[in-house]
């Protein structure tokens, strides 16, 4: 008996040791990730921050590097992301809910599941080529903010669907059964009981999806995003009835990554500074967008306890 007590203590110490080792490994990994992020941002910032100024943010592109600015690109990115979010989020979540809660679990459902994850791997430029034929020509939406938003929405739809499904899957079925026991209908069960618990994880998927969309270049060039445009889409607010206009959806545009890519390819070294400054702004935009979603997720999660 005593021998086995020593043995047990040794066993415990050994296991605690490995646990501590893993904790250090985990911390190291996080550190590496943070260091890389800092290196990236620092490298951009050192070149780009000196170039940042109000003029840079409010000027249009120009062949003179000192006068060039990102106004049209900034507005374009904002508008396109708005359309992408409004298109991808409802459709993605609705798809996920249907596929997880409503669809019968037969071979068709398996097919659709494989199909969705496959779509996540299609290169973004193929979405661009598809959107060109579909949105630009077939639906006659032209080379506009609407086309761009829909293209990017298609691109990130698989991510949103997969994360929604996983989020719904992770809710214990006890909750579902309890809801049914109270006489809830399927939709009531999903809307009132499941979704609130799953919303945090769903938001994660949305964050990751939108982050990807904001940095995309190739598919947007294919559907006709411009590289030089020195005017803004028409404002959504009008002075006479109905006070809201959607003309901006049909307007030509450009986006930040395209502007950056164009500047980075120019021979003059001053343009490299512009590109770095644009990169800093783009990262800041992503941070802002992520920040909003992360805050929402935090608020949702606070109210949830298993």
């Amino acid at each position, binding site marked *: 008996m005593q021998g086995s007590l020593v043995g047990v203590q040794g066993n415990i110490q050994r296991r605690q040791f490995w646990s501590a080792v893993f904790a250090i490994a985990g911390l190291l990994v996080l550190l590496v990730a943070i260091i890389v992020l800092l290196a990236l941002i620092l490298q951009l910032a050192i070149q780009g921050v000196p170039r940042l100024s109000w003029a840079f943010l409010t000027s249009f592109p120009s062949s003179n590097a000192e006068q060039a600015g990102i106004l049209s690109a900034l507005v374009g990115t904002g508008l396109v992301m708005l359309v992408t979010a409004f298109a991808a989020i409802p459709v993605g979540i609705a798809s996920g809910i249907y596929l997880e809660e409503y669809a019968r679990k037969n071979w068709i459902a398996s097919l659709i599941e494989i199909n969705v994850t496959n779509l996540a791997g299609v290169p973004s430029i193929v979405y661009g080529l598809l959107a060109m034929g579909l949105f630009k020509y077939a639906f006659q939406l032209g*080379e506009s903010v609407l086309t761009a938003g829909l293209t990017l929405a298609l691109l990130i739809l698989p991510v949103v669907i997969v994360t929604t499904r996983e989020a719904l899957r992770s809710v214990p079925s006890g909750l579902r059964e309890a809801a049914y026991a109270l006489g809830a209908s399927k939709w009531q069960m999903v809307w009132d009981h499941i979704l609130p618990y799953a919303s945090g994880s769903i938001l994660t998927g949305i964050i990751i999806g939108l982050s990807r969309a904001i940095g995309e270049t190739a598919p947007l060039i294919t559907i*006709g995003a*411009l*590289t030089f*445009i*020195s005017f803004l889409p028409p404002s959504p607010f009008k002075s006479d009835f109905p006070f809201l*206009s959607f003309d901006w959806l*049909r307007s030509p545009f450009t986006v930040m990554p395209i502007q950056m890519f164009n500047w980075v390819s120019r021979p003059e070294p001053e343009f490299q500074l512009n590109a770095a400054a644009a990169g800093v702004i783009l990262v800041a935009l992503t941070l802002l967008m992520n920040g909003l979603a992360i805050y929402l997720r935090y608020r949702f999660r606070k109210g949830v306890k298993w």
Partner: protein
Amino acid sequence: MAVKSVLSRVALASAIVTATTGVFASGAGSQQAIVKIDGSSTVFPVTEKVAEDFQKSPAAKGAKVTLGISGTGGGFRKFCNGETDISNASRPILEKEMKACAEKGIKYVEIPIAYDALTVVIHPQNNWAETMTVAQLKTIWEPAAQGKITRWNQVNPSWPNAPLALFGAGADSGTFDYFTEAIVGKAKQSRSDFTGSEDDNVLVQGVSRNRNALGFFGLAYYEANKGRLKAVKIVNPKTGQAVAPSNKTVIDGSYLPLSRPIFIYVKADSMKRPEVKAFAEFYIKNGAKAADAVKYVPLPASDYAKAMERFQKGQLGTAFGGKEEIGIKIADTWNRKLVD
């Protein structure tokens, strides 16, 4: 639960916005006068400068210009589909594209606007290959050289026994087509084991960091990086003289065969619109200034005058018959018959 109410409000808002978007999205586009241009990324810098100056000038009367960079091929596709008013092109329109335009009834005026000098570059410390002949370049770049010609002294025994590091434009670019046609004799015939890139700045990086490197790209990229590169003097096959690329040598035609003209194509129907007409005329008038500003080689003044004449007379079609041509002086092409 707070979550539920936030979610339901967001859902309601999304639904309303989506519905109204659907209703209103079928509305008309911008009312502004816009000149739509797309095409080659090589010609882009010149057109951008012209567009910028045009928009500031009184000739524009508030018209705006938009520019895309879908590439020469993509630009022609849109052009022959009627979507753009002007197409930037780093090569003449090819047969297949001419057919596509003819099918849709698109007619155009071809306007050469500048020269791009393809510059062969080496590392500044490379003091052995400062002058090269076309034959030597061919030995290095032809398809038969793949895997075999890997050291400098294989091309010329007096050169050092050092590995050859090759950099050049990607196989899809007009630069590549032109270089291979001029040096190897047929477009797209080349060894494939070199480092290619879309971004000429990356090639600049590659050559400037490697003593044994050899690369080619547009003059503008050499001019902007003169401190870290050396331009090779090419022996003119006709005169036997070694010529360095510069504005002067391109214009007087002595830098052969690596100078190529770049063009804009203006849609005939669009020319009826005042803003397009004003822009094209502004372009021809200010082309020299713009080309100079972005380090391309301007045409001689006489060529611009001829271009203006061609434009104002509305002479449609191309002088190149749907094919690329090497070592051409634009001045020699004005009397050719234009083909549609």
